[in-house]
């Protein structure tokens, strides 16, 4: 779960990491008011979950009120890589002489977090990692001990941060690790840490992604989750408790188990179709959950055809069939053709219950997907 820059910066500031003076604004008038307080130059930064906002036109530096009004008007409401900008962060401009990168993420291979520092900040750190890996100093963190102060120093000196800033930057790194743990972060980074012309060290950007599996013990962050959805469908999936990812195709996909649903998407693609979504109803789903899943997929206006692929382990075929019947029987006309494939636990019982007037039934995964792809292509024509 991604936090917005302003949310992450609030958390950073509360922990004592210096951030520029800033104010959140949702309208042009609020932006003008904010720059009035903050002064010039000021930055106006789109608050959307998109990397490379700057290049995409989501950030503007303004030097007077007219420019602020103009840029606010341009950015608020704009579409940034599929996300609509509803809020901007108005922030004091920083006159900087250098930019560093500091961040912490989970190294899956090592099974432990890793702290990273680079003096090549302000650019895409993945590119730095590829082109000049030595420019990023790394320290693996033993999660039982946490980040030792000496490790923070070692990373900072190892990255070549000049002595006069080393103490502050390593202090920021140590604080970042505390926040990483306290907030169950998956990633946390500042890119760039700016060195100002006054020799101050300041977090000019803030990225924080939260481990969704830990939201149960992060009530404040869970509150922020509602701001993190890209659109109404994602929000709906969140409310229903589905693992859902929206894609750009027209074949709606529902299944149980991440691997099997991914495989269903892949087969749609393999047989020439375009998946509209990933939707995993999870293990042991009851009829109502199945109905909710169909509601989700039907709500996506891009969907022309649906494939329902269940291999029952804990999930029972009869429950799934009941759910499909319930959902479809509520329609006067089935909105999109639905292909159903049921296998595994109670599949036979499910097939007996299933109202085959309302759905098309196939015996294998491959056949079901091919039929759904065909249905979609027929609608397109």
């Amino acid at each position, binding site marked *: 779960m991604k936090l917005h820059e302003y949310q992450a910066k609030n958390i950073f500031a509360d922990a004592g990491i210096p951030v520029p003076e800033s104010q959140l604004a949702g309208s042009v008038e609020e932006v003008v008011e904010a720059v009035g307080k903050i002064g010039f130059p000021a930055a106006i930064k789109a608050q959307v979950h998109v*990397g490379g906002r700057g290049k995409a036109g989501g950030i503007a530096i303004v030097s007077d009120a007219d420019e602020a009004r103009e840029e606010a008007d341009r950015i608020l409401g704009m579409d940034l890589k599929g996300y609509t900008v509803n809020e901007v962060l108005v922030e004091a401009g920083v006159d900087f002489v250098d930019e560093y990168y500091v961040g912490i993420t*989970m190294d*899956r*291979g090592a*099974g*432990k*977090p890793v702290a990273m520092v680079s003096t090549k900040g302000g650019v895409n750190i*993945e590119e730095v*990692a*590829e082109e000049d890996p030595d420019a990023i100093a790394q320290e693996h963190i*033993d*999660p*039982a001990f946490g980040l030792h102060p000496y490790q923070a120093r070692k990373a900072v000196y190892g990255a070549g941060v000049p002595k006069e800033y080393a103490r502050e930057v390593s202090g920021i790194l140590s604080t970042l690790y505390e926040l990483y*743990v306290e907030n*169950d972060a*998956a990633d946390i980074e500042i890119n760039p840490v700016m060195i100002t012309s006054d020799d101050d060290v300041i977090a000019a950007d803030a990225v924080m992604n939260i*481990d*969704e*599996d*830990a939201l*149960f*013990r992060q009530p404040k962050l869970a509150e922020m989750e509602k701001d993190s959805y890209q659109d109404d469908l994602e929000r709906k999936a969140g409310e229903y408790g589905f*693992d859902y*990812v929206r*894609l750009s195709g027209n074949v709606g996909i529902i*299944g*149980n*188990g*991440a*691997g*099997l*649903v*991914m*495989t269903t*998407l*892949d*087969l*749609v*693609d*393999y047989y020439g179709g375009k*998946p509209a979504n*990933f939707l*995993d109803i999870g*293990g*042991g789903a009851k009829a109502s959950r199945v109905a909710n899943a169909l509601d989700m997929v039907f709500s996506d206006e891009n969907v022309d055809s649906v494939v329902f692929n269940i*291999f*029952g*382990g*804990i999930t029972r075929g009869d429950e799934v069939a009941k759910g499909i019947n319930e959902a479809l029987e509520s329609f006067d006309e089935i909105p999109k053709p639905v292909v159903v494939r049921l*296998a*595994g*636990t109670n599949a036979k019982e499910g097939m007996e219950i299933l109202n085959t007037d309302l759905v098309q039934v196939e015996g*294998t*995964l*491959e056949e079901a997907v091919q039929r759904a792809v065909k249905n979609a292509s027929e609608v397109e024509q």
Partner: protein
Amino acid sequence: MSTFVDNDTKVVVQGITGGEGKFHTQQMIEYGTNVVAGAVPGKGGQEVEGVPVYDTVDEAVKEEDANASVVFVPPAFAGDAIFEALDTDLDLVVAITEGIPTQDMAKVNKRLSEVDTRLLGPNCPGIITPGEAKLGILPGNIFEAGNVGLVSRSGTLTYQVVSNLTERGIGQTTAIGIGGDPIIGTSFVDALDAFENDDETDAVVMCGEIGGEDEEQAARFIAENMDTPVAGFIAGRTAPPGKRMGHAGAIVSGSGTGTAESKVNALNDAGVPVGDTPEEVADAIEDFL
């Protein structure tokens, strides 16, 4: 020979009094698994499906001589339950629970390096040696004893591939679910190594998916260390970067690591045929035998 579990495995079920724990205990016993105890704090002295329940895993192990546990404890408490299991010198701990916070698992991972116990999962369907024992939630009826080993990050995908095999009359030595989380106990390499050393396993199916670099490591291991032929499948070819595809571990990073393409290429380079469909995986295995 079987891998990791067999007739002699004596199982304690952690969380046996919960809905899932109870149901699958019954299923495991029905399959023939030797479930000797349950462990739930505060429920010591009860019985579930004829199995005695203890307050601690330690007591269950001491009283009933268990050598393996299956964890059905909810995510908030599962990390602690795994630590508890790792404190009792078991041979195997199978963590079914999905949704354990990753930082909890990083700590478990550290603890794993200090003990001799093997962890399967978490977020895995468990392990089955057909005809002998199953530990977990896999539907026993689709498996058949035979000579193919299977290792997978995904539950239902495993069932799909197994049914493709079983329908052709190809049985399995052991099927191992290693789990869909970013940090797991047993890796592909560990499982492949066990299959390579199992005389009865003549071929292996490996079902990977996007995220991480376990499949790439497995490919290197296969190329360097395995004589037993392996066929592969990789789920998530159509997954967009930066999106978690159900499994916490199934995510292509924004910088493009963990892609299906990288994994398929690595396996192909190691001489492993990778099926475009589950049926093609079964075809490849049939060719091997």
